[in-house]
């Protein structure tokens, strides 16, 4: 084992030196550990070391019932907590072959899009922060705070909402929900030009991101990237379009695709996705069907023996849940295909030959959530 680890550590010559970025470092946004071989400021080699926040969520799920293990997944990609829960609920519903009420489907989709908005806003703020511009962070949090308040009212929690349950959602929406969401969309549409003024149009920001961290279409496919990272390289991979779940089949929205494949393209894709999320919310918010918000499901869920797979689009890409059932009340095996783990693979080809400052810009454009990599 020791030998195995040793062979992974980068060896350096006299001209080059090695620095460890992380596990405690401001720009890794968590406990990611990168080992860099530098020639002056130039990155010659890069190796990520994982496992600092491995909690064994997949293994723990095997000893929890179907209703319990859903809540663990909130702690994977904590910024897409709702979408993770949604994926697990969908896979269980697939196994049970239950039909979810229309109202629940729309509420789930609304919540998922709000989650995506909140996640992208945090990403936008921290991108500015990584580039050395502190002020955008606070502007991003202005609207994000409104979304979190909506979550708090309806779900009782701001980040890890645990709102999805098999068969629907846990509670009905708060009476103020519709009004507040409309107010949020109105305010966000009024304020989104500030996002462009603060970062997008800034010449320093553009020169820091344009042409930096190029990821070709072929590389993106080979590394199985997904989400905005892949779409910025010209791959059409939006699960909401390709494989619609819940209420996505009844809304019309554009899949944002850019072909440049650099940091600025990924930035633009996410900014446009925020606008598309608002479009989806606007289409659904006036048409929430009346009726039940949850179908009654037995207290103890037992899935039929078999294998089930469901994929969803989180804020960072494609999340796949693969579940094997042996007929008992607990899953036999669960495997998550998380977007950040695959996207992390693109870090090395993107950043070799760049400067340390480029690495920070690339990490920001990948929008990595470390607990999602380690699980």
């Amino acid at each position, binding site marked *: 084992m020791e030998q195995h680890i040793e062979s992974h550590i980068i060896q350096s010559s006299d001209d080059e030196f090695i*620095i460890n970025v992380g596990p405690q470092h*401001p720009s890794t946004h968590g406990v990611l550990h990168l080992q860099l071989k530098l020639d002056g*400021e130039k990155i010659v080699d890069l190796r990520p070391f994982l496992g600092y926040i491995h909690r064994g969520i997949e293994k723990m799920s095997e000893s929890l019932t179907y209703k319990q293990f859903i809540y663990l997944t909130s702690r994977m990609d904590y910024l897409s907590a709702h979408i993770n829960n949604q994926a697990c609920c969908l896979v269980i519903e697939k196994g049970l072959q239950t039909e979810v009420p229309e109202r629940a489907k729309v509420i789930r989709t609304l919540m998922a899009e709000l989650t995506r908005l909140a996640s992208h806003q945090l990403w936008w703020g921290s991108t500015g922060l990584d*580039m*050395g511009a*502190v002020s955008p*962070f606070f502007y991003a949090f202005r609207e994000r705070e409104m979304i979190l308040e909506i979550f708090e009212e309806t779900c009782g929690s701001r980040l890890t909402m645990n709102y999805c349950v098999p068969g629907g959602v846990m509670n009905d929406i708060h009476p103020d929900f519709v009004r507040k969401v409309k107010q949020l969309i109105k305010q966000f549409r009024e304020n989104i030009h500030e996002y462009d003024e603060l970062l997008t149009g800034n010449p320093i920001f553009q020169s*820091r991101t344009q042409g930096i961290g190029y990821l070709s279409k072929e590389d993106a496919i080979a590394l199985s990237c997904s989400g905005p990272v892949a779409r910025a390289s010209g791959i059409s991979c939006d699960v909401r379009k390709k494989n619609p779940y819940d209420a996505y089949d009844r809304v019309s929205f554009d899949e944002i695709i850019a072909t440049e494949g650099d940091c600025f393209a990924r930035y633009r894709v996410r900014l446009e996705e925020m606008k598309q999320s608002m479009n989806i919310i606007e289409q659904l918010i006036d048409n929430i069907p009346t009726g039940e918000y949850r179908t009654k499901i037995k207290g103890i869920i037992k899935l039929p023996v078999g294998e089930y797979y469901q994929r969803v689009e989180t804020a960072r890409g494609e999340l796949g849940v693969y579940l094997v059932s042996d007929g008992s009340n607990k899953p036999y095996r669960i495997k998550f295909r998380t977007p950040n783990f695959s996207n992390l693979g693109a870090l090395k080809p993107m950043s070799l030959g760049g400067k340390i400052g480029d*690495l920070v810009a690339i990490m920001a454009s990948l929008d990595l959530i470390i607990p999602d990599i380690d699980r």
Partner: protein
Amino acid sequence: MIHWIGQKLNDIFGPLWAPYVGYILVGLVIITLVVVMAVISIYLERKIAAFMQMRLGPMRVGKWGTLQAFADVFKLMLKESLTPAQADKQLFHIAPYLVLTVSFLAFAPIAFSPTLQLWDMNIGVLYITSISSVGVIGILMAGWSSNNKYSLLGAMRSGAQIVSYELSAGIAILTIVMMSGSLSVSGIIQSQADGWWIFKGHIPAIIAFVIFAIASTAELNRAPFDLAEAEQELTAGFHTEYSGMQFAMFFLAEYTNMFIVSMLGTTLFLGGWMPLHIANWETFNHLMDKIPPFLWFFGKVFISLFMIIWFRWTFPRLRIDQLLKLEWKYLLPIGMVNLVIGAIVTWLGWIF
């Protein structure tokens, strides 16, 4: 007043020792002034940053958080100054004091008002530019001796940055020196009695002012040129390993340097302590004359200071190669051409 103090000192200590006691007193006054101004600028920076970011900033310590800086200094004084293992201990401990001393030294020739100037030497501007470039040695010492690769990278960045941007700042200063025909601080201010250089120097002076603003912000290691301590890249750059009062020294030096740059800019371009006069507006000019010179001086200094703070909270950071490209490919050639234009303007006497 000053003569009276001098006489008293003479009476008490005798003619042999009185000058030395006087020097010590003046030194203490300057240190107090610097510390008070640094505290004010730290408070300003926090409040301005907060307002730009839609928050209130410090509010708890004192009325509107005015005592926050003192609370922070008190906290830092109680902290242990750690020394990393295998650090070069001597250099490690000298570095913060060297950086701070250099900043204090640069205050010597600055004229706060017609009567308040410590040392009116005939090469005052040259003295400030040369003494402030010693500061980079302290930064390099800190980065090298910390035994930390991040510190070393930060120090090397800082060295490259300060050395290159000093050229542009120097050339911008030279333009004004040439127009006013004097290297002494009081001489430059006197030459602006009939109009500040930014007004009567026409285009060369304005270009020189812009170059000076950019280059001096870069020399200060502040955003958007804060690569030496780029938080997201190098954690804290050259002062990563410093703690307690030694860290406070670097912090104080940064804010002191901000003041020196603002004061130098004020002296060179904005007329020092000269009031604002507009030709043929007799009443207005009279009113302006009523405002004491030191208020004029500090008013202008705080406006320049606000500019520096404004830069920091709105711009993203440049990358190291972009930073050097900006200097060597744009600022320096423009500055050179501008110097020649300035020389022609001065030679033809087009300054009015």
